């Protein structure tokens, strides 16, 4: 099957652009970067067609990567239905976003660097998806984290960008720490990290072991997929270029946690406690992020919190045992959220860098293509039937209701808020009168063609790709509440949100401000994102920095370690100044010492019995 070609192509693109890109023309950089990703996409398609009915998974072994004692980790790639879904999303949407980036990045410095990083990201993401054991998955996991860091800090001359990069990297470490612990624990209990071996034994393992593993994996997933309490890095990650936000921080990388938990479904189904934790964390994240999203004024921040919220939905799906629904939402979310971000990018591009909603408005006429494509995303995310978001969100909510009605009701409220804040962003951007100063212009074709493709996918993706049915064979069957009432309620919530936004931002524009005045305290609370960053800063970051500075740096490092090192150095000098006298340059004195050594050796041999008897 030559699965290795799929990730290797972007890697080759990265190497070529990374090494020679500085001297390449832009078109050559484009050809290499996009060509490698598109080729990879085509190879995925070829692989799928070659696999026939897709009922059997294929695994390819390339070489033994680590062998030490009982550890035997190979470089193995695995393709089954779940992988195929992820591969298509990653390479397909990746290709579109690469094309889009040509237009978006055309005026930016570090052009080749951007594409090299993007290709590297594709490589690691594909390794993550294809890897047939936890360690290989972890390689991709860390690799995409690295690329995320590099791309968030792409504008490294801006402090907020590098700070955001550092924040993403450091917060992710916490999650990775959990993931590492999970791997150690898996290896300790199952003696292997291969998926098939681990999952084969998992069914018979004690529940508390599986719960521990599940919770630790959950920590990892929380980091990567921006769940409470580790979601704080994702909104800041919007400091990167918008295509990065679309590809990495909406469509693909942040869903890695969802993919990983879905991949480990065997462990989770046997650990109901962990499942509950996932569902609760998911719904809390979804709800809180949605509330924050209500009051944000930066268009990308709105969509960032929306992403966090939607990821929460996916975890709700996973936590409710509806793994296929979670993946389903992952796919549709990839379509419409990528579209939202790219559209936002198009708006920002049109306004030459303006991101504040308050400085927009009335752009409907000026950038019609962007507007109409974003409308598609709008209706999709708001859960308007029969568009894609409706199907997946509905599937999750139905599963959640079966699991716990409380989660369902919070989910419905969240759905309403989602519809509200997206509508708010849409109204503030495209309707009303223009409040900004920059001259708006429509984006070039390389930017709007991907938008159009994604718009089509957002509209019809829901029923064109019945992911849930496609994945049914992989995951355990769940009972679904066949209650049409529930569906009507959630649809109603979506329309309610849209309607409320229409009322507040189009019919009575002053209403939003007056409401904010009326409910000042809650508004301030959500406007400032519940002060989470400040709380973290006060409770974790500052004590940590202070402790590091006072104890670790001044005490341990400067005092103890430097003292030891300097002391060793100083003693070495002292000894050396004595031994220096031996280095007389006189060869005969050297020879005398050699002779002395030989005699000592002979004496030692005699005394210690090194001689044959």
């Amino acid at each position, binding site marked *: 099957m030559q699965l290795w070609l799929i990730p290797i192509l972007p890697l080759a693109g990265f190497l070529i652009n990374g090494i020679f890109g500085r001297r390449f023309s832009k078109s050559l950089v484009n050809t290499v970067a996009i060509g490698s990703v598109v080729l990879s996409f085509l190879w995925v398609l070829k692989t799928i067609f070659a696999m026939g009915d897709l009922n059997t998974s294929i695994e390819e072994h390339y070489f033994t990567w680590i062998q030490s004692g009982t550890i035997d980790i190979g470089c193995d790639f695995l393709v089954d239905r779940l992988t195929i879904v992820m591969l298509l999303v990653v390479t397909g949407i990746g290709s579109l976003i690469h094309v889009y980036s040509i237009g978006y990045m055309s005026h930016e410095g570090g052009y080749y660097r951007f594409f090299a990083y993007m290709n590297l990201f594709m490589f690691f993401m594909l390794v993550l998806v294809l890897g047939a054991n936890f360690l290989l998955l972890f390689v991709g996991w860390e690799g995409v984290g690295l690329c995320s860091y590099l791309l968030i800090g792409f504008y490294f001359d801006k402090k907020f960008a590098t700070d955001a990069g550092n924040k993403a990297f450091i917060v992710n470490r916490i999650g990775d720490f959990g993931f590492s612990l999970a791997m150690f624990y898996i290896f300790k209990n199952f003696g292997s990290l291969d998926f098939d071996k681990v999952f084969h034994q998992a069914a018979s393992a004690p529940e508390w072991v599986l719960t521990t593993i599940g919770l630790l994996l959950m920590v990892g997933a929380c980091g990567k997929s921006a769940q409470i309490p580790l979601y704080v890095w994702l909104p800041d990650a919007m400091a990167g270029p918008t295509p990065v936000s679309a590809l990495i921080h909406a469509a693909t990388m942040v869903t890695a946690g969802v993919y990983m938990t879905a991949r480990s479904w065997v462990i989770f189904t046997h650990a109901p406690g962990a499942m509950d934790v996932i569902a609760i964390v998911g719904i809390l994240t979804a709800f809180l992020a949605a509330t924050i999203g209500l009051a944000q004024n930066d268009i990308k921040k709105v969509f960032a919190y929306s992403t966090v919220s939607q990821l929460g939905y996916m975890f709700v799906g996973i936590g409710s045992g509806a793994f296929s629904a979670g993946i389903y939402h992952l796919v549709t979310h990839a379509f419409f959220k990528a579209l939202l971000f790219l559209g936002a990018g198009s708006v920002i591009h049109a306004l030459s860098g303006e991101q504040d909603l308050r400085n927009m408005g009335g752009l409907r006429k000026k950038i019609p293509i962007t507007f109409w494509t974003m409308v598609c995303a709008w209706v999709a995310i708001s859960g308007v039937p029969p568009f894609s978001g409706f199907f997946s969100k509905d599937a999750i909510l139905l599963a959640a209701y079966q699991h716990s009605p409380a989660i369902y009701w919070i989910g419905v409220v969240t759905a309403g808020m989602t519809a509200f804040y997206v509508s708010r962003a849409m109204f503030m951007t495209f309707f009303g009168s223009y409040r900004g100063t920059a001259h708006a212009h429509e984006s070039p074709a390389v930017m709007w063609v991907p938008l159009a493709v994604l718009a089509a996918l957002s509209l019809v993706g829901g029923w064109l790709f019945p992911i849930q049915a496609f994945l049914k064979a992989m995951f355990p069957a769940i009972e679904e509440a066949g209650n049409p009432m529930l569906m009507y309620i959630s649809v109603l919530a979506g329309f309610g949100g849209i309607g409320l936004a229409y009322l507040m931002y189009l019919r009575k524009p002053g209403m939003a401000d007056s409401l904010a005045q009326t409910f000042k305290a809650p508004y301030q609370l959500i406007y400032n994102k519940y002060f989470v960053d400040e709380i973290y800063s006060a409770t974790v970051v500052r004590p940590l920095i202070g402790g590091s500075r006072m104890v670790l740096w001044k005490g341990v490092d400067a005092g103890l370690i430097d003292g030891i090192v300097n002391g060793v150095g100083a003693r070495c000098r002292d000894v050396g100044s004595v031994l220096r006298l031996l280095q007389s340059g006189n060869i005969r004195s050297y020879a005398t010492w050699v002779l002395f050594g030989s005699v000592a050796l*002979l004496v030692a041999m005699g005394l210690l019995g090194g*001689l044959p008897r």
Partner: protein
Amino acid sequence: MDVILFLIFAVVAVVCAINVVVQTHPISSALSLVGVMGSLAVLYLLLGAEFIAAAQVIVYAGAIMVLFVFVIMLLNAGAETKKGRSYLIPGAPLLIVFLGLMAYYVQRYLFPESAVVRFGGFTGGGPKDIGNALFTTYLLPFEVTSILILVAIIGAVVLARKEIE
């Protein structure tokens, strides 16, 4: 017969070796060293190492030592001067201990009384045997040695050539 031959040439070798050390003029030392090498060649024959005996004379006595003699003549080196410190005080006792220990170990531990050398007791040292071993088991070292020699030639030429103005 073997014992007599051994004793004769061992004594010659030791006397020549002592001469190497005590002669003040390098050329006398060099010629004494040739004497040592010649006696060793005979002892090699006694041990059945015909090829090595011939090579010893051709390479050591006939080439290396000629080179030494040549250089001594070229530099017209005189007898050595008594300058600088003597290493007799630390060196001589150490040397005596060294030699004593070596001899003691060899006699006491390494070889039983029955291990003896008879002329003709080992016939595997002819040119054929050496050639066989050299071009099969030791082929790589042999090739590496040839490179070493080449490097040495170039090095010697570079070091010793006259500076071209």
